[in-house]
């Protein structure tokens, strides 16, 4: 079987893990594969166990100089053991509190406007709705903005991160037709292009998202049309399943590779050095 196995490490040299693993563990592994040693720093969404475990896994495996930014802290865990805490606590603050390199004393100076400095190369963002060009809606659901069917909780910093990172990845917990829509009800953050223009013309740090991760597949964007395209399907899932759960016409290549399953090295490091509490093994 042909695999999508994009990673800084050569995964063909690593033995495939044959035991059982959860979808969340697999997604964390996929996140880790996208982190490169020269990325400098990476940040993850608001609170996402998958993303933070994935980034930290990359630090343990191949990106030992990477600083992870979360909850106002900077940290590198290459030579540190993650402290234990109870799963009832949110991990993003408490587990890092004692091992951080430093913290942001004024969030606004560092996080929200890095100016000539570079905050991070990589960031993972999500959306209530995502369209075929990668536009994100996190504001409201419904065509009548004054009386929305659902009002989102606000943007937090999604624009800030979407525009200021070298590479952004989309990450959603559910792959369904409510999420992957033909047209978003509200453009909260720009994809490759929309009715206002193309992102590359606006002077941002990136031209659009690199990849889209879901629990069943990986997608990218076709080079010229910037239209979303199926990249690979996770083990146990099919192309038909992806198409049934996507409301727009996804580009499907003639041959769709499988997403490379986790290797022994990846699962071992994830369980013994990063997700020692087994948070990812539990159902969300």
């Amino acid at each position, binding site marked *: 079987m042909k695999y999508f196995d994009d990673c800084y490490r050569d995964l063909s040299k690593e033995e495939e893990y044959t035991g059982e693993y959860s979808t969340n563990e697999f997604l964390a592994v996929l996140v880790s594969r996208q982190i490169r040693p020269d990325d400098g720093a990476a940040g993850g969404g608001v609170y996402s166990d998958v993303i933070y475990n994935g980034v930290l896994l990359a630090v343990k495996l191949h990106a030992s100089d990477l600083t992870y930014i979360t909850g106002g802290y900077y940290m590198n865990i290459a030579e540190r053991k993650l402290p234990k805490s109870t799963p009832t606590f949110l991990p993003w603050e408490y587990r890092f509190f004692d091992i951080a390199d430093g913290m942001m004393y004024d969030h*606004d100076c560092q996080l*929200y406007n890095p100016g000539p400095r570079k905050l991070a190369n990589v960031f993972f963002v999500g959306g209530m709705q995502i369209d075929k060009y990668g536009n994100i809606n996190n504001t409201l659901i419904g065509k009548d903005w004054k009386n929305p069917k659902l009002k989102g909780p*606000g943007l*937090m910093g999604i*624009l800030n991160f979407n525009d200021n990172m070298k590479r952004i990845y989309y990450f959603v917990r559910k792959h369904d037709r409510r999420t992957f829509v033909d047209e978003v009800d509200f453009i*909260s953050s*720009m994809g490759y292009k*929309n009715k206002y223009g193309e992102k590359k013309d*606006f002077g941002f740090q990136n031209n659009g998202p690199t990849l889209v991760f879901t629990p069943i597949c990986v997608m990218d964007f076709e080079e010229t049309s910037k239209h979303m395209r199926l990249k690979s399907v996770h083990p146990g899932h099919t192309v038909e399943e992806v198409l049934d759960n996507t409301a727009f016409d996804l580009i499907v290549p003639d041959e769709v590779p499988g997403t490379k399953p986790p290797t022994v090295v990846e699962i071992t490091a994830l369980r013994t050095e990063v997700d020692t509490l087994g948070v990812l093994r539990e159902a969300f």
Partner: protein
Amino acid sequence: MAERSSRVISAEEAVSLVKDGDTLGLSGFILFNEPMALIRALIKRGVKDLTVVTLGGGIGVDMLIGAGCVKKLVTTYMGLQHYAPIAPNFRRAMEQGEDLFFWECDFQHWHCAMKAAGWNMPYLLTKQGVGTDLPKYNPDLREIEVNGQRWIAVPPIPIDVSFIYAAQADPYGNVIHKASVFSERIIARATRRHIISCCDELIPNKYINREPRIVTLAGLVAADYVVEIPYGAHPEEGQGYYMHDRYHVREYIAAAEAARTGEDADAFKRYMDRYVYGPKDHNEYLEAIGGMRRLLELRQSML
């Protein structure tokens, strides 16, 4: 010899400084460091038509909305983490057509509005928001062209009174945060009338003199008034002292959600009667939420 004046006041005195229609700045972020005790005291006193400004609203802001105190909300986020992705009273107000204007924004717009207020600027520029529907939804975010590039001009939002929760403060308004300083400094900077610090512990000035670098608000942005309220951030986390109270957070959300969905229309009113209007002071509130036993649990869970 002249004596230095103490800035210590009571919670009741503090909330009496807020008027109807004021713009109120609140410290903290989601489930951390909101000045909860002052918010409860303010609701109890009764206030209306507030514009509330906070980086990310938590239970405190949601409670103010539920109590009918808020006309306009300037914040980047109104969710309660994994407990409730969208804060219940906020959601009810937005989806059921109540009279609440949400100043939808991203981090940078919020910070530009605060900095423009703090620096007396007509507007500040950010690139975030061009190429989106945001300027159509929030008319204050105006798209303009500078040097051939499109920018968003963000106007100032000056604050009248700010409530800043902190771990410690001395009687002269010098304030110490134990962990994150989310946006407290810029909120203080944008405040025109009164910066009021609600601290868990009042400490002697001597303590600060030994290590002035740990002070987070002093001088230009020192608190004008200080209120000592132990466990004043409950049920949120008081950083450096205690965890958020997950039992109480769930109780709050269950009540507000039941009222929102109509499943139990009086649930939120009962919550408010029990925890906000009922207790005659903060000590009675602490008894109502489980007293010493619960408070010790919250401290121990920080270890």
